[in-house]
């Protein structure tokens, strides 16, 4: 595989995998935040 083709492949894969990973990280983080119980000692 030539360096130029490899560079485009890495760019394309990194872009979509990075974007997908970031989105799911944020979604899962937000879900955890939403589901978090109140701090101990506070009434439910």
């Amino acid at each position: 595989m030539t360096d130029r083709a490899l560079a485009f492949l890495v760019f394309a894969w990194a872009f979509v995998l990075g974007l997908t990973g970031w989105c799911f990280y944020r979604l899962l983080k937000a879900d955890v935040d939403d589901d978090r119980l109140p701090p101990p000692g506070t009434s439910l």
Partner: protein
Amino acid sequence: MAGNAVGLGNFLRFPRQAVANGGGTFMIPYFIALLLVGIPLMWVEWGIGRRGGQAGHGSLPGQFSTLWKHPVAKYLGVMGLFNTLVVLIYYCYIESWTLAWTFVSVAGSMRGLDEQGMKQFLYSYQNLSDPSVHAVWVPFLFFALTLGLNFFVVSKGISAGIERLAKIGMPILFLFAALLVIRVLTLPPAAASPWEGLNFMYTPDWAALARPSVWLAAAGQIFFTLSVGMGTLSAYASYLRKNDDIALSGLATAATNETAEVVLGGSLAIPAVVTFFGVGAAVTIAQGGGFDLGFISMPLVFNQLPGGAWVTTAAGVMWFGLLFFAGITSSVAMATPALSFMEENFGWRRQKSVAVIATLAVTLGALHILYYQRGFLDEWDYWAGTFGLVVCALLEVIVFVWLFGPDNAVAEIRQGARMYLPPRLLRFVLTWVTPFFLLVLMGWWTVQEAIPTLLMRGRAPEEVAVRWASRGVMAALFVLQLWLIRLAWHRRAAEGRPG
């Protein structure tokens, strides 16, 4: 939502487009179109859907009339019913091929066939006047099975039907695709190595960037792959609550689809074909079309896999199985707007709506099976599945951004957002950049393709009558849906319900 977006085009259309439009350099206009057209349109459709859903509208006619208080608004929304219903019918026919090919992979009917034999195997299925391989009833049987499965899923509703299908189908799709990619990339070199296939796909052709057709092909691919401009995304989004996130969820949908397309779809068919047949043959095959690539070349590749008959069978089941799951998770979404429209406007129960739409799909789908070779399906694919998407997307942007108001549109998208969206930039892109792209795309397609297609240039004389009949059926569907919208709003007015 991701199930809706990931479809047959991710695995059959994208690799061909990339190879034909500059290889690695295709990714530059492709990603620019994703950022400036695809993702903004994704947010527009989600915004339209969530806003319309608050007023009880699950399809574009009602959703448009919520955003723009004008009697014409609901009629513009016909595009969201027309595109989805028309594409649903012919898409299910193509989906039925993937189901049939999954079965024949298990039966081993394609084992040992050469290229000519494989072509005959496909063309006999597509052409009822050539029963040399398949009996005439076989395509009808698999079409009926496919429609039956689709309507069984949608009859169960969103949660128990479509959501459950996506939860099962999407992981299977990704698993099958990942296993096939690993197998393809670890194949021993034959005519070439699989990495030469990737090299062939990603080698940049800088001159391609100067060709407008490459930019338009990239924008077109983004359109098809994200399922924007159909009305399915807005139908699903109508089930969201007012403060549910659409910004991050819409972006995640687009990103998941891109992973399936670029990482998996781009690493399967072309590298596999190059490995066994070389770069020269891959160019010819790519020019032949996505169906030849998927239904002729890939089974030929599977026949040559080391490991014996069970490897050939397993690869065939995984390939056609993943295509089937990619197809069905998209087609059930296409049925949703029409079903929602009938239920919310005419008070029909789910089962009754499903029965009526299924009857229509069986009847009109049979015409596709009978006249596929004469271009009946091509006409629907072009006018509804290609040109119609751009028209619908342009109407969505005009209604949601220009008529509802750019500030309202931006506020709607940012409502409940789990990510930061810069309001000024978003407003600029939605108001000017996305509509500009859409107008250029529509203008180019009108001149380059729509006019020649309309005038039947280059068509065989024996196809012309069938193609006009195909357009006539589409036109009748369009008028019927306009009439149903009119009837629905008369009923609403009589019942004192807001339109």
